[in-house]
């Protein structure tokens, strides 16, 4: 049976892996190959690198990191953050990435998902969705649900998250990386309702993200959120838990994991 996946997410800027608290106080977290190898040894099923570089000038600095990791660590590598064009996909795949994750660029130009998946296959095109529960006037106008935000969560696109996920899967996205903005950084657990709504709506795998504070949150994301994979950053980075502990807990809860 196909295992449910655990995916640690690493932030990259200026050619280094960093860690921060709520996007401030970024600290050097160490050598990317060492960190990737450590998660690999712990049993991580994939790794996601998120380029949090603010300017496009420094964006290419992620390429040597991906090259270095890909030559030593043999599990799937996804790169997100600032991926805009089919050419970006080509460069990242050539550097050793296996998947590339589009976010704002897919909203600005949905056709890029069709083009990129036609050229390189759906298996390497992920669409990341930052979703937030509707509130205020939006809630009154359009009812309960979640809106898609772009530009790092600063701009409400007015798109419904479930409909958008469906459209992106139709356009050729091979996977949806779904982040709850309401839960991100709170350690209160995934937004399970959101995760389930999207996961049940599409035929491609869904990765749940945002809000993990405990190992049971991960298991809940799979069992109650119907996610195919769970992504977490802080619980692993700060040594609170290892990936192996997370897998052991998931296995105890009856979830098929690769151990």
């Amino acid at each position, binding site marked *: 049976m196909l295992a449910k996946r655990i995916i640690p997410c690493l932030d990259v800027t200026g050619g280094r892996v960093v860690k921060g608290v709520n996007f401030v106080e970024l600290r050097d977290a160490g050598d990317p190959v060492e960190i990737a190898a450590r998660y690999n040894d712990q049993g991580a099923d994939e790794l996601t690198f998120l380029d949090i570089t603010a300017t496009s000038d420094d964006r290419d600095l992620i390429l040597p990191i991906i090259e270095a990791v890909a*030559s030593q660590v043999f599990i799937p590598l996804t790169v997100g953050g600032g991926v805009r064009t089919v050419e970006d996909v080509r460069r990242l795949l050539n550097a050793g990435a*296996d998947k590339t994750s589009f976010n704002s660029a897919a909203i600005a130009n949905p056709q890029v998902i069709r083009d990129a998946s036609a050229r390189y296959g759906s298996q390497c095109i992920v669409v990341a969705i930052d979703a937030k529960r509707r509130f205020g006037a939006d809630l009154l106008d359009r009812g309960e649900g979640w809106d898609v935000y772009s530009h790092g969560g600063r701009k409400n696109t007015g798109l419904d998250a479930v409909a958008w996920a469906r459209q992106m899967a139709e356009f050729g996205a091979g996977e949806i990386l779904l982040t709850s903005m309401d839960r991100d950084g709170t350690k209160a657990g995934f937004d399970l309702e959101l995760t389930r709504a999207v996961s049940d709506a599409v035929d491609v795998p869904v990765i749940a993200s945002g809000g993990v504070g405990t190992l049971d949150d991960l298991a809940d994301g799979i069992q109650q959120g119907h996610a195919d994979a769970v992504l977490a950053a802080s619980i692993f980075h700060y040594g609170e838990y290892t990936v192996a502990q997370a897998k052991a807990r998931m296995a105890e809860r009856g979830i098929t994991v690769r151990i």
Partner: protein
Amino acid sequence: MKKIVNTVAVVDYGMGNLRSVAQAVLHAAADSGVNVIITAEPAQVRAASRVVLPGQGAMPDCMRELRASGLLEPVLEAAASKPLFGVCVGMQMLLDHSAEGPAGVGTPGLGVIGGEVVRFDLAGRTQADGSRYKVPQMGWNQVFATQPRHALWSGVPDGSWFYFVHSFYARPSDARHTAGEADYGGRFTAAVARDNIFATQFHPEKSAAQGLALYRNFLHWNP
């Protein structure tokens, strides 16, 4: 005395993530005396003592590019004469025909291993834990060797986890050509083998230690 150089050619016909296959083969070959080349040159594929045929993306595109690159003939020659390892679509191309491509028509393959490549038909079905089957199958699944156990499984325990990303899978016409199986809505062929050919639907290059073990075995395989 002339030393026979063991050279493995990773065939570069312009499709998919060839680099990760090459990286893993290089890693598996480290300190083994095996020379790894990544090549788009038909002559180099002909000269190599063993060949790896990667493949990613859609089968019609892979077949078209293989033909356009002039590498189809040397690959067919390799399939007839020396150890050949196909990966993912590089495996699917070895079969007679794939359902992937124009509706109702599909795409002809190389016909090196008899059988068809068909799509997972799992719409609306749920897994044992109640979750829905998704297509593509994306992630780690357990592979079990069929009997008699193929030499390339040496040192790879039954039920080892390998990384899959695919919507189509092979259905060899001769059951003896299935070398390994996995379960996704029923057992399906995860690896095929015949004589000097071994090929996997999963990606050894993304399957951590067990994947590297498989490549290492291939580099020293003498069928």
